[in-house]
């Protein structure tokens, strides 16, 4: 099992509320800016996309790669973060 980052733990610990998209694990400044330009300025919007894709890992990874150019590790971190958040709060 890969270890989770502090960012992941912080995000999954509480409801996301109005957190910005950069609060997601794997999404830093550069990627967050690109997502915001496409309209995904808040974490819950990305969550919406994640849910519309029925929490499918492959589709979500493709989507986030196409949208902001995330690499494999970042895709995995973001997916894992959202999945765990959903398991906890949804």
């Amino acid at each position: 099992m890969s270890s989770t980052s502090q960012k992941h733990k912080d995000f999954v610990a509480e409801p996301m509320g109005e957190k910005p998209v950069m609060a997601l694990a794997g999404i830093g400044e550069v990627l967050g800016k690109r997502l915001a330009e496409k309209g995904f300025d808040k974490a819950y919007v990305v969550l919406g996309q994640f849910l519309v894709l029925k929490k499918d890992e492959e589709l979500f990874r493709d989507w986030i790669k196409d949208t902001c150019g995330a690499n494999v590790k970042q895709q995995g971190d973001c997916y894992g973060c959202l999945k765990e958040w959903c398991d906890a709060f949804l």
Partner: protein
Amino acid sequence: MPMFVEDPANFSKSRLKSDLVAHNVKLPPAKSKKEVYVELHMQHIDQKKTVEFSSDEEVEEDEEDDMEGEDGENPGDAEMPDPSALTDDDLKAALLKHGVKAGPIVASTRFLYEKKLRKLLQSDGHHGQLNGAKNGMMYSDSEEEEEEENGEDNDAESSAEEENKETVEESDQADEESSQVKLCTQNGGFTYPQCFLPQMRRVQAGSQSVAANVYSSSSSSSSSSSQTFSITEMLKEMEGRRSLSTSANSERAFNGGNVQHHWSQSNRLDMPSVVNRTMKNQSLYYTPKAFPQEREMQEPVKDDFKHLFPAEITPSGIYATRRRPIKGAAGRPIQYMYPDTPVSPMTLQRRDVERRLVPVHIQILVFVTVTCLLYLIYVCVEDNTFSPIVSLLDNLNPGSNSGEALLHKTEAQDTPALSEWE
């Protein structure tokens, strides 16, 4: 069921946009309604597709000819049309056909599902090419599927050029998107050189720390040097460290002297002063050896640095310096080589002697007291009567008669006792 539903109203807005762009149609303003897109779509694109419709009627009659032409088709169009040409429902159905249960096909998800369908079609197309002859037999047997697929194939044949154009354009779009992704990755790649900076800092700090592992000021100097990256400044720092090194050596000598003082104090207890003198002489011998050794170590090392720095300048600024030999292995000053050997046997002997001395005194005292007690007991036991003790007591009393009588008695008794002794 008809595969080509030429009703652009069923398309999503993004789909219409992409189609218009594919056909080099000027897009209306961004916030225009879908109807505008649909109209444009119908105007420009449907003209081309009417040709396809006409071909449908003709081709249904000819089946076998179309089947033969399958093998020459694009693998992606062997069974299904281009995913982009499908409606949302059709796309979903096509995905379901391949065993993929798709979620809602919305504007944001459409592209992903199309991509997925393309992947599935390519994989099927590869299989389809291998089994081309068998598929021909299959088509002749089945009825409805045969006609539909023949219709598709015919459309593919007659409008092969157009579809090729479309696929080319769509592939161009895909290339644009992929190029955008490539740009993103390139931009990400451009960030990598920035990552070298902290590594360079580490390299600098590492080289300098190796050089100055003995000195306490290495941390401050390395931090200051990481900010500036010039050779001259680093050389200046090296020179500065030389001065520090001499002071450090003097400090070390003082520390050694303090340790020696402790040794001398412990020696005074038992060992003769000669030992002290020999110890001090040895230490004195050690210290002068230490200094020249250290200086010898420093000079060649520093020369190496000077040789290294100007020689190995790379364009990227990253360089590797030869590591300074570890001082603990061979260059350790002799002063610290034998810290214990002249001392340890002396201290051990002293400690043993001390252990023996104290209890010996106690043993002697105890022995003396025990002998005295025994002697008193013997004296008491030897004299059968208590007369000597009583006479001793009566001497203290001024009583005369009893005393005289006792004295006579004692004298009478003493004489036989004395005779017995003799």
